[in-house]
């Protein structure tokens, strides 16, 4: 067998020739300018052309939510504007990675969904353009809630109208509370523990509390909500990490979760495997009494076609802890325009038309897409006029308590620290929190290493 692996001189020379060609081509490729320019030229500096002059097909990319509703709105756009749109989507859990692949591979993208957490990253990569100065934006911005503007703003530039906006809500099963003889939902995290123990002791469910701790995108919001509700912060105004402060809100929140699993046994030890969707289904099946979920999930929890607890799911104010008032974290998912689209002024105009249609007003001056998305899935909006829409009010009354919703929204805070390296730190932070819940490390240690990681990244970013 060993003799068969000798190389002849000819083979070596030929291999060397091929390798040399490869190095040459690789070097030439390396000398080529990158496809995307960093610090992208603002859209307003590129003259915007005419959407009607654009003869191609617009490419819209999003995650797989309210797909039929969006498709109907896209069809309506095409009928009204005579601009064909190719609408594609993928699961939210894979969305970021899919978009990175598409941008890196120069796949055709014009308008796409983003998250507040990704705007800075994609802006720095030169993949998206700001929409400042585009016709009609100033008027539309007046109708936006402040958090939606700040969520889509990076380095003073605004990147897109909202697809939807919401906040992390504390939801409970009212029937479970009744069965356990509890008259009102918990107001503090300590009361959550007491009531969960009571529900468990009454034999209603084995693990009353459900906070989906799988290391997926939602874990970030669960972490922020718990820290904010205790009056804490993750980062200060200068984006310095403050969550590792000994005895602070983050340590209290993490310790509380560790105790919930291991001491009070009100949360399933397998919770680190449970993702948001699995958590939702468990709640719909009546397997949990208290859960953290996006407020919009309340509609599906109270939908008899999807949930066994329809009519019994309620929202309570986020429990308070320490010096907190029960604040929560809010988020906005904006539409963004690709840098590739902005290279052609007519294509940019067409993409801007589509963004306005979906994230702003249609030809009749209505925020119709946002309203349809709400009615289809409960996913909320970020435009003030819609709050007065009678259909919207009636919808909220049907499955929720508008008073509690408004009260919680008034004290919702946007995510801090959304710098370009946020995703990199976030991956590390989620693993650190998981390790603490699994008791592979202490909460203080977990937060310390997470803060050290943030500081390293911030230093190397300068």
């Amino acid at each position: 067998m060993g003799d068969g692996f000798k190389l002849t001189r000819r083979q070596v020379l030929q291999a060397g020739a091929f390798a040399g060609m490869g190095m040459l081509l690789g070097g030439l490729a390396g000398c080529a300018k990158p496809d995307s320019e960093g610090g992208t030229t603002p859209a307003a500096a590129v003259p915007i052309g005419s959407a009607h002059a654009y003869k191609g097909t617009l490419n819209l990319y999003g995650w797989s939510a309210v797909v039929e509703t969006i498709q109907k709105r896209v069809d309506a756009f095409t009928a009204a504007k005579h601009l064909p749109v190719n609408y594609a989507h993928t699961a939210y859990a894979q969305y970021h990675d899919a978009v990175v692949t598409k941008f890196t591979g120069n796949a055709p993208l014009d308008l796409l969904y983003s998250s507040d957490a990704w705007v800075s990253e994609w802006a720095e990569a030169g993949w998206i353009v700001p929409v400042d100065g585009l016709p009609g934006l100033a008027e539309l911005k007046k109708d936006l809630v402040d958090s939606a503007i700040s969520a889509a703003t990076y380095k003073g530039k605004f990147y897109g109208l909202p697809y939807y906006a919401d906040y992390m809500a504390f939801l409970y099963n009212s029937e479970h509370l009744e069965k356990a003889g509890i008259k009102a939902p918990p107001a503090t995290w300590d009361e959550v523990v007491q009531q969960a123990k009571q529900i468990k002791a009454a034999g209603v469910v084995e693990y009353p509390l459900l906070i989906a701790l799988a290391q997926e995108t939602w874990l970030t919001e669960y972490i922020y909500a718990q820290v904010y509700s205790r009056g804490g912060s993750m980062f200060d105004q200068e984006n310095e990490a403050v969550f590792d402060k000994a005895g602070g809100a983050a340590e209290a929140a993490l310790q509380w979760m560790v105790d919930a699993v291991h001491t009070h046994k009100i949360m399933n030890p397998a919770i680190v495997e449970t993702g948001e969707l699995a958590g939702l289904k468990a709640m719909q099946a009546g397997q949990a009494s208290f859960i953290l979920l996006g407020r919009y999930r309340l509609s599906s929890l109270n939908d008899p076609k999807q949930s066994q607890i329809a009519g019994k799911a309620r929202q309570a104010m986020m429990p308070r802890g320490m010096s907190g008032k029960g604040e929560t974290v809010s988020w906005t998912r904006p539409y963004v325009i690709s840098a590739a689209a902005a290279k052609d002024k007519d294509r940019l105009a067409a993409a801007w038309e589509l963004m306005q249609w979906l994230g702003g007003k249609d030809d009749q001056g209505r925020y119709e897409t946002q309203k349809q998305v709400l009615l289809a899935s409960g996913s909320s909006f970020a435009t003030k006029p819609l709050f007065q829409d009678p259909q919207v009010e009636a919808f909220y009354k049907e499955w929720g308590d508008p008073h509690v919703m408004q009260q919680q929204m008034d004290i919702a805070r946007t995510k801090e620290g959304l710098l370009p390296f946020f995703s990199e730190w976030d991956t590390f932070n989620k693993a650190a929190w998981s390790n603490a819940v699994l008791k592979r490390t202490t909460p203080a240690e977990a937060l310390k290493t997470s803060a050290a990681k943030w500081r390293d990244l911030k230093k190397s970013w300068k």
Partner: protein
Amino acid sequence: MALLFLAPALLIMFAVNVYPVLYALWISLHRSDLRRPLSNPFVGLGNFVAVFSESYFVSSLLHTLQFTLLGVALVTAVGLASALILNEKFPLQPVAFAVFLIPWAVPSVVNGLMWKWIYDSQFGSLNGLLYSLGLIDAYQPMLGDPAKAMYLVINAFVWKEVPLAGLLFLTTLKSIPHELYEAAMVDGADALRRFRYITLPSLKPAFLLVLIYNTMQAIRAFDIIYVLTEGGPGDATGNLAWSAYQESFRHLNLGRGSALAYLIAMGTFVIAYWYLKALGREEKENA
């Protein structure tokens, strides 16, 4: 003239195989951060050094070694045992052979999803089986338990790879002249001696192939980890391939991702070379 005829195929092979490898090497020697597309300086081995000093590197390396050593050992042992059984004549042997090959036909991602359901802590059939056999009092966390997670991932990997290993062993077994066994039996050799002095030496080529292939598969294992655990719980199952993916796609740092990919490739090459040398030397001595 022959080269001319081969040129189109060679060009395609070059474009698809050689060029990307060389370009990845070029990327690994530069600071290729997608978040800073205009800044792409040559950093030499800087990315490799950075990766070595990252907090995840040691644990990723250890997980990779654990996965590889255990995974390859199990695939080889179970594959050989299966081949020895299937080499015998018994009723419905062709049916058994067909069933044996099914895991290999299952796509990797489907394999991962299937095992994810089996391992589920709330309603998985593994928990159900253990509970019904009275081995556990209540359903246990499976993939959420860092003590178990890696072994469960390895199990899913082994289940998928055993059929190919078994097939390679079986093919080689069938090529061993039967006269050797007959002569051995005439000389009074028992089954164990026949296995040790005839079967095992004859299986050396198959061993080499199985070991090299499965080592490569194990070192590069990504899809099974992506589907089952995404490196969790915590960081209990993250291996080097997973770290390379995270660096490239989640952190947008292609320089470091490529550096990790090259480390994986070099590790694979070294191990494959060692196998060839070790098994090749033994063959020379036995010749």
